[in-house]
């Protein structure tokens, strides 16, 4: 990293004491594990993010190579005490670098960023994820598992290895997963349709929370539309800042081009105009 600046975790306290949001700061990696070929789970110590992150919020991780100045956003996948985990695929130079981190190394982070899934309502939450869309839904399962009156079903689709079942099944009431050799999340949604459509005791409809590749998201929104279910989708877009200052991360919605980082990443299928 450049001699430019050297932010440490102290700045978090300084900022918070003064009533501000923590700036980019340096945290310690406490663990890293390869879950599947090229899929890593990285854990770092960050009391602030651990205390404040909500499902579908993300953190910007920063490369130590100043050739790569732009933030790399990753959804929070789990929180335990002060520890925050993300799960990421190695797809480019930044993630390749992150994959070489080991416990004791440090990394710069900013977050938690974005607006979370809206889960105020007690309901049956159907957590639908594809590929590297799993992290926010693991975290949704974790946060929702504490609540009575809430039921969760995880419906995960993988390319090959079922690398996230281990984590989500700790929290979800039910976990169903599939890989490309058998089908995709729509296959599962159809297969378990009857249970998924059951209206729970409190009378509220099942709610779909989804994250994954665009074609999958559109298919899930369409499925939700067919069955007239509320559906929140966590979107991806290349970002500049991740906190709402640059308007580089827009997605087209019925309300115009909105920022994925600050207006999202969560949008309803109605906002996206999908599955109507």
């Amino acid at each position, binding site marked *: 990293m450049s001699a430019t600046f050297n932010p440490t975790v102290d700045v978090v306290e300084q900022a918070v004491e003064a009533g501000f949001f923590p*700036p*980019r700061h340096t945290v310690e990696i406490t663990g890293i594990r390869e879950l599947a070929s090229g899929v890593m789970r990285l854990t770092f110590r960050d009391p602030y993010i651990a205390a404040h992150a909500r499902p579908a919020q993300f953190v910007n991780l920063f490369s130590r190579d100043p050739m790569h100045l*732009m933030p790399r956003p990753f959804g929070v996948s789990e929180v335990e005490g002060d520890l925050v985990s993300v799960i990421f695929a190695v797809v480019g130079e930044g993630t390749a670098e992150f994959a070489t981190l080991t416990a004791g190394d440090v990394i710069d982070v900013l977050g938690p960023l974005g607006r979370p899934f809206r889960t105020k309502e007690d309901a049956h939450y159907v957590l639908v994820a594809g590929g590297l869309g799993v992290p926010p839904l693991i975290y949704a399962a974790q946060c929702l598992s504490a609540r009575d009156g809430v039921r969760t079903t995880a419906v995960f689709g993988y390319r090959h290895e079922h690398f996230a079942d281990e984590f989500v099944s700790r929290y979800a009431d039910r976990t169903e997963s599939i890989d490309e050799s058998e089908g995709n999340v729509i296959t599962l949604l159809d297969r378990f349709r009857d249970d998924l459509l059951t209206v729970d005791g409190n009378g509220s409809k099942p709610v779909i929370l989804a994250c994954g590749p665009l074609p999958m998201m559109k298919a899930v929104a369409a499925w939700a539309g067919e069955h007239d279910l509320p559906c929140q989708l966590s979107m991806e877009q290349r970002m500049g800042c991740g*906190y709402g200052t*640059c308007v580089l991360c827009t997605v087209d919605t019925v309300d115009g081009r909105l920022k994925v980082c600050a207006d999202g990443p969560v949008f309803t299928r109605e906002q996206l105009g999908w599955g109507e």
Partner: protein
Amino acid sequence: MVENVRHPINLYEPHEWRHPTVVAGVPWKNPVGTASGTFQYAAVRWFYDVSQLGAVCTKGVSPVPWEGNPGVRTAEGPASNVNAVGLQNPGVDHYLVDDLPKLKKIGATVISNVAGHSDDDYAEVVAKLADSPADMLEINVSCPNVSHGGMSVGADPVALSRLITRLRRLTDKPMIVKLTPNVTDITVPARAAVEAGADALSLINTIVGMRINTRTGKPIIDHVTGGVSGPAVLPIGLARVWQVRTALPEIPIIGIGGIDTGEKALEYLYAGANAVEVGAAALFDPVAPLRVARELEDLLDSRPQLAETLASGGTWR
């Protein structure tokens, strides 16, 4: 060129600025502002007290809301960002009731950046801002990401001269013209702008660039090309400021391009700028503009002659 081991600066405690500057008659608390398009009050206010900055330059506003470019708008370059927002903004009317009053209320010195697809567009916005509490106007004739207006005006001295002459009649506010480096000789539009009535110049805007995804063989940004900014453009911005200062010894200049430390800001002041704006650095470090201002202040402490010159509205060269 590290001056001294950087001591930790607490950006959150109250601070008395020791080295103000003056740009076209407008006093700035310190010589560091934000660069247009990388500052949205609604986002940045969570990070620090933005009234601490020398000035806040807001995102370009147009007569009506603009939706900007579709799809992927950004790619990364080596030590740089490539952007193709296409000037998405909610329009001047929204700006006049939202961002501007909020910023003025907290005591910020505000530069309102003006965008247009045509002379009429620019004129309409300037006319509306003329009676507003904005402290300065910055006319963006240098955006590379729109097909009309923007860079196409800033690269044509005749068109630029006509536009600035017209805008000059619409307002008494200090008017900054923001120049593009995507021209053969930047002193030509610089001179045209000043002769037509610009009170100050700001430079540089972004440089046309692109990246290609080697998996697909296609450009990463849907708009194909975008504007390069960030540390990579520092030497280019410095040279443009040097050239314009050499050609126009008297005009106030705001130096922009690749600034992410106080020391780089200082280079611009030595190149002849009265002040600087910090752009892309805020994307990878939200507090960058304020941090740069504080770092620069420490550097100016040991350069009393430069500090005095700036405080009195002069420049080093």
